[in-house]
């Protein structure tokens, strides 16, 4: 404790000696710093580090100190269930920290907030958070989308900026080697993948090429869009979707059946990575660096970065390609960045300083706070050039910028903040920008389902049935793709099973929640 006071004293002296901050216009408490406990389970860094430069800077500016008390942290990113698991463990432990930040927090706070586990934020925002208030007044649809069934907001979301997320990528140098054109339709795409498999584009004399691969296996299922199916209604895998105001699940649609049938054929022919279900997150790194991978569906910024491999692999060029036209001629890109993520932070129900906490949340929506959340610390990670935050060159050179930013405490998805796409543009290379221009031109994006907030009765129905239905869907899905079953033969039985397991009950409660939330 004494040591703490000492550091505080030193920090206070530093603040006092810096003229720009002397007026303390962002300071939330004066004198003794306010310590708030925080649970932080962000996808990549499941802790809150008190020595992050961004946290240090935020302390200096606001005089609020966040103390890490995260429990149940884990790095599992596969199904996002790891995040919910940690939140459940936290609640079961009986102590809710002052601030709870996490990926996948929305359903959790909307379920337990009304029971008293988290504070409703509406009044606090109205009275004490001018920046948040202004933001929500300008974007009322966001407030609607994150509110719980009782009409209250229980968390401040992480709000992604920019539209594009994942795209199709292909080894264009392989296309040239084999004298092929960029595939425009699903038939052409199949031909290209087959050529990658059989015509040895990497020239080592062995048919070791892996035509289509993915870091996350659901990205294989994403390909059902090429047969007019859907794999998810939002940027979360296996999610529900809205068709003409009606809730539906993509895995119970005809296009999905057709898509799975064809993907099973592709898998059988070796057009798809044989180990797609177990290779895991290092698939992209491994298959591209070993000159084996041909095509994938992955994020713009990070995937374009692999073109740096051209220094090791003669002619290496990995470019974005427009989504191939489906069998009916539609070209869609199913994945996009959605305007509101179910990620962010909330105020624990036992927090004794709700006013200070909402002011702290508000701080991250001020200009300075937003820059801190997006770019790191001024002078350390970026400089202001003509009123814009520009990353320092050495920071850009230090490896993938998003990873570097997590390591200093910026771009945390467990923090409620408004992303600034300017951060990503700066480290998107020419290949990414070219790809984005291509996608802009074609206008391939589709609307996304932003989720619903259940009341207690709806929640009970959803909890009861959905887990088993989802397990069953994924089980049949993998079995069909792997050839352990035949989708055509089993489809009727599959649909009957879904019905028996309660799919229509789940859709019914989702529909009622949806109508209430978005005004039917």
């Amino acid at each position, binding site marked *: 404790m004494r040591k703490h006071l000492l550091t505080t004293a030193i920090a206070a002296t530093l603040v006092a000696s810096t003229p720009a901050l002397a007026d303390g216009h962002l300071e939330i408490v004066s004198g003794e710093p306010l310590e708030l406990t925080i649970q932080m389970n962000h996808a990549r860094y499941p802790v809150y580090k008190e020595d992050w430069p961004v946290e240090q800077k935020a302390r200096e500016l606001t005089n609020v100190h966040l103390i890490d008390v995260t429990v149940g942290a884990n790095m599992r990113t596969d199904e996002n*269930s790891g995040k*919910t*698991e940690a939140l*459940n*463990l936290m*609640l*079961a432990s*009986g102590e809710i920290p002052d601030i709870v930040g996490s990926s996948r927090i929305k359903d959790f706070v909307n379920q*337990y907030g009304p*029971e*008293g*586990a988290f504070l409703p934020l509406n009044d606090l925002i109205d009275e004490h958070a001018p920046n948040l208030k202004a933001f929500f007044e300008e974007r009322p649809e966001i407030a609607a989308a994150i509110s719980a069934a009782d009409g209250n907001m229980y968390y401040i979301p992480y709000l992604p900026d920019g539209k594009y997320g994942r795209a199709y990528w292909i080894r264009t140098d392989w296309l040239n080697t084999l004298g092929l054109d960029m595939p425009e339709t699903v038939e052409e795409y199949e031909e290209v993948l087959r050529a990658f498999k059989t015509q040895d584009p990497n020239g080592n004399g062995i048919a070791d090429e892996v035509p289509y691969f993915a870091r996350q296996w659901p990205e294989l299922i994403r390909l059902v869009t090429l047969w007019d199916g859907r794999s998810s209604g939002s940027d979360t895998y296996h999610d529900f979707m809205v068709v003409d105001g009606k809730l539906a699940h993509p895995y119970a649609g005809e296009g999905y059946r057709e898509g799975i049938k064809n993907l099973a054929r592709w898998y059988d022919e070796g057009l798809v990575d*044989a*180990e797609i*279900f*177990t290779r895991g997150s290092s698939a992209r790194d491994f298959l591209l660096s070993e000159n084996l991978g041909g095509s994938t569906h992955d994020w713009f910024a990070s995937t374009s970065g692999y073109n740096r491999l051209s220094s090791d692999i003669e002619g290496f060029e990995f470019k974005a390609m427009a989504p191939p036209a489906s069998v009916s001629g539609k070209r869609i890109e199913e994945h996009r960045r959605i305007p509101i993520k179910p990620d962010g932070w909330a105020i624990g129900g036992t927090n004794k300083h709700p006013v200070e906490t909402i002011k702290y949340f508000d701080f991250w929506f001020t200009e300075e706070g937003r820059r801190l959340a997006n770019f790191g610390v001024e002078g350390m990670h970026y400089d202001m050039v003509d009123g814009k935050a520009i990353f320092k060159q050495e920071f850009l050179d230090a490896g993938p910028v998003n990873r570097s930013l997590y390591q200093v405490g910026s771009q945390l998805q467990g923090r409620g903040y408004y992303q600034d796409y300017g951060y990503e543009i700066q480290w998107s290379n020419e290949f990414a920008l070219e790809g984005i221009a291509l996608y802009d031109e074609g206008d391939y994006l589709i609307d996304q389902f932003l989720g619903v907030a259940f009341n207690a009765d709806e929640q*009970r129905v959803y*909890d*009861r049935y*959905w*887990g*088993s239905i989802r*397990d*069953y869907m*994924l*089980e049949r*899905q*993998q*079995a069909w793709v*792997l050839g*352990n079953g035949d989708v055509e033969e089993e489809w009727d039985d599959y649909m009957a099973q879904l019905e028996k397991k309660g799919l229509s009950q789940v859709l019914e409660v989702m529909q009622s929640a949806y109508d209430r939330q978005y005004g039917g």
Partner: protein
Amino acid sequence: MQSESRLSKIGYHLRREWQIYVMLLPTIIWFIVFLYKPMYGLQIAFKDYSIFRGVDGSPWIGFEHFEFLFSNDQFIRAFWNTIIISGLNLLFGFPAPIILALLFNEILHATYKKTAQTIVYLPHFISSVIIAGIVITAFSPSVGIVNTVLGWFGIDSIYFLTKPEWFRPIFVGTGIWQEAGFGSIVFLAAIAGVNPSLYESAVVDGANRWQMMWKITIPSILPTILIMLIIRIGNVMEVSFELIILLYQPATYSTADVVNTFVYRQGIQSGQYDFAAAAGLFNAVVAFVLVMIANTLSKRYSRTSLW
């Protein structure tokens, strides 16, 4: 009057043997903290439980969770998978350490015996996560040793870990590899306890080693084998589910999903603690019945029993 003398008798006994009771204490504390105290929470199987409201604050709902459980075919399947995997474990996994112990007993060269024992004990001390990593790598279609060897004989590589029919052999085999060595210790101890004069007289009578094993060693350690078997049957419902979680995929749920993994997915991942508690409770009841039956049978036919 009588109870008083009994109490004083106990008091005297405690004073005299207190060191032994102190040694017992850690185990009793362990049982209370980790087994008896959690039993209080079992009531959530009959409640509409909310983690936030807590065990006492949640309303009673009777047998609703159980009714839903038995109408859930994934649970029924998980239940049968548990029985089948355990059955295979019992069939192949139970004799393995006995055979191993008998084999070790026949080795005469001391250094060789010690080295071999150490090697087979070692896997027991490796964490399941590492074991799963080894298994996944060994059975990988592209770099795995198993498929490489199959390749020498012209067999196409098999993606073992996504094939439902391969899951059980791989799982049971891994379990044997990991535990057979360590499990043989108790049987070696039993063999060491066999009266040497029996062997001496057998040698005088001209018995060979094979006959000695069948006629002396095995009958002598039979009580130990039976006790171990009863304990094993009591644990039939407890397959090592960490290893299953690490090895299974949605594609192999049909043969790999056991009650404990089902409880894990429903309870911890989907947050339905009450429903999962009902499944776990049912599991425990089945295990209890099994151990009762095994014990009664053993008592009747061999006069060896746990209690």
